[in-house]
């Protein structure tokens, strides 16, 4: 029975693909991958470098901007061409985010210190999009535009080396969907009627407002601090609206509550891919 169902399913799909092809339309699918450079960046704490000369000191501040959207991305998509120009598709992609770092160095002759903050994010993106393509021959130009629904995660690590002491704290951000916009312009070269290779400029524009921040690592000179901390110091719930009463403070056994924050996940990048068209000409 199970085997019979499977055969029916495969037959159904095949019939659908062939019938779609008969109408001069067609199903298509593909895989792609590339690199996204940071775009729509926001502020990361400035780099600071304090140097000493005799009894005076000076600090050099350098602005830092970042987006967690930078990094390597790859994905797969499938869609349907309604006619030779317009199609609708769904892409599922994953971003392995690169790191963004800010550094605060103090070359004090008594206690030199260095604090490094490193942020990193990953995101699973579902992108329903419209495809618009032109071109009669082997080479086609296309534009895709759509909405990104993302499920993101991120980490923020602050490493503090002060004299002989080394502290390390890692916060993890999670929860809260992110909605953004996707656009791409590309060229596709068909090696045969069915198989093409593509190269495109891709833009993904979204910010992420996480629901929760959890301190997952806290050590001083390699000794764990986390177990000594109450929950209110380890966990923060980001809320759109909440009420606080100083006469009835939130107990230390509950997560802290704070205003929503936004983390940038935008990128502009280059993707290459392989495209298979199941439809007719």
């Amino acid at each position: 029975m199970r085997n019979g169902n499977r055969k029916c399913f495969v037959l159904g799909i095949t019939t659908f693909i062939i019938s779609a092809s008969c109408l001069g339309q067609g199903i298509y699918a593909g895989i792609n991958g590339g690199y996204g450079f940071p775009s729509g960046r926001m502020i990361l704490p400035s780099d600071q470098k304090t140097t000493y000369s005799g009894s005076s000191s000076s600090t050099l501040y350098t602005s830092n901007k970042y987006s967690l959207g930078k990094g390597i991305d790859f994905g797969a998509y499938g869609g349907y061409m309604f006619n030779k120009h317009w199609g609708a598709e769904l892409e599922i992609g994953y971003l392995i985010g690169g790191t963004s770092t800010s550094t605060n160095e103090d070359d004090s002759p008594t206690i030199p210190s260095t604090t490094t903050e490193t942020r990193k994010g990953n995101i699973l993106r579902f992108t329903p999009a419209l495809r618009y393509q032109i071109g009669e021959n082997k080479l086609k130009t296309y534009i895709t535009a759509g909405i990104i629904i993302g499920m993101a995660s991120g980490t923020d690590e602050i490493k503090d080396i002060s004299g002989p002491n080394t502290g390390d704290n890692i916060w993890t951000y999670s929860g809260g969907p992110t909605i953004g916009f996707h656009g791409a312009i590309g060229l596709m070269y068909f090696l045969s009627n069915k198989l093409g290779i593509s190269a495109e400029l891709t833009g993904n524009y979204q910010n992420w407002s996480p629901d929760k921040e959890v301190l997952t690592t806290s050590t001083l000179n390699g000794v764990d601090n986390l177990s000594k901390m109450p929950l209110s110091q380890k966990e923060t719930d980001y809320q759109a609206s909440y009420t606080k009463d100083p006469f009835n403070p939130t107990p230390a056994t509950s997560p802290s509550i704070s205003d929503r924050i936004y983390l940038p996940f935008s990128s502009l990048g280059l993707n290459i891919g392989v495209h298979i068209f199941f439809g007719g000409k």
Partner: protein
Amino acid sequence: MKIFKINLILLILMGVFSFQSFGQGIYVGIDGGIGFAACKDELGTDMKTNITPPPSNSMATLYTSRNYSLGQGFSFGIHGGFMLNKYFGIQLGADYLMGAATTLTNETDTPGSAVIQTTTLKSSMIRLIPAILIQNGDAKFRTYAVVGLIVGLAPKVTDDQDSASGASHTTAVLSGGLSWGFHGAVGVKYFFTNKLDIFGELTGNYLNWSPGKSVITASTYNGKDNLSTLSTSQKEIDFQSSYTVNNSATPTTGSPSQTSQIVLPFSSFGFTIGVQYLFGK
């Protein structure tokens, strides 16, 4: 000089007609629309505190997170371009963004009185948009997509702060710096005649802005001007990508303060309608 002008007009007309003879064409249009906030960042928190005196003796504050983009508002502009063939065109648009006001409120209510502080941000920007247009068909209805860059010129944000229910008022103007980002649109155009069409499109503009300068232009307390009592360092801030502070020296008050760059969101997603005239075939 008159001959030069006549020659210039003749040259332009010859250009227009020579383009037509190749089946290509110049087009010009006007457009206007509305943009809603996209790729938002956190603005701050609306706070509403209710204080009840003894014997009830309670104080509760409602916090509401506020996000914003200064790109929301109305825009209107002109554009012109050249169709390289019936599918491809290149164009340059220029529009003016009249940003909508965004207000943050901090209100404290006690029996018989209320103290309200507000911060209101309002933006404007001229956007130059060089872009590529691709379209299908030569019927009366044509679908098209546009992708391009945005160069934000003369960006300006007015930051009005009213505190203690209007007892003090400060206006700061942020300006300077260049902004650039990305533009995308998908739309439909309808040709009334061979030359004249109307169009409607979904439009996305994605850009952030790092202002170069902030200047307090008005400061009053109980209606009395106190701008003249402020030093230059209190009135003006230069946002720098890199700067050095001598920690041993007394800060000078006769020159603007220096601080790290900030980033303000100017993204939007909206609708645009317009009219276009095609000089070609």
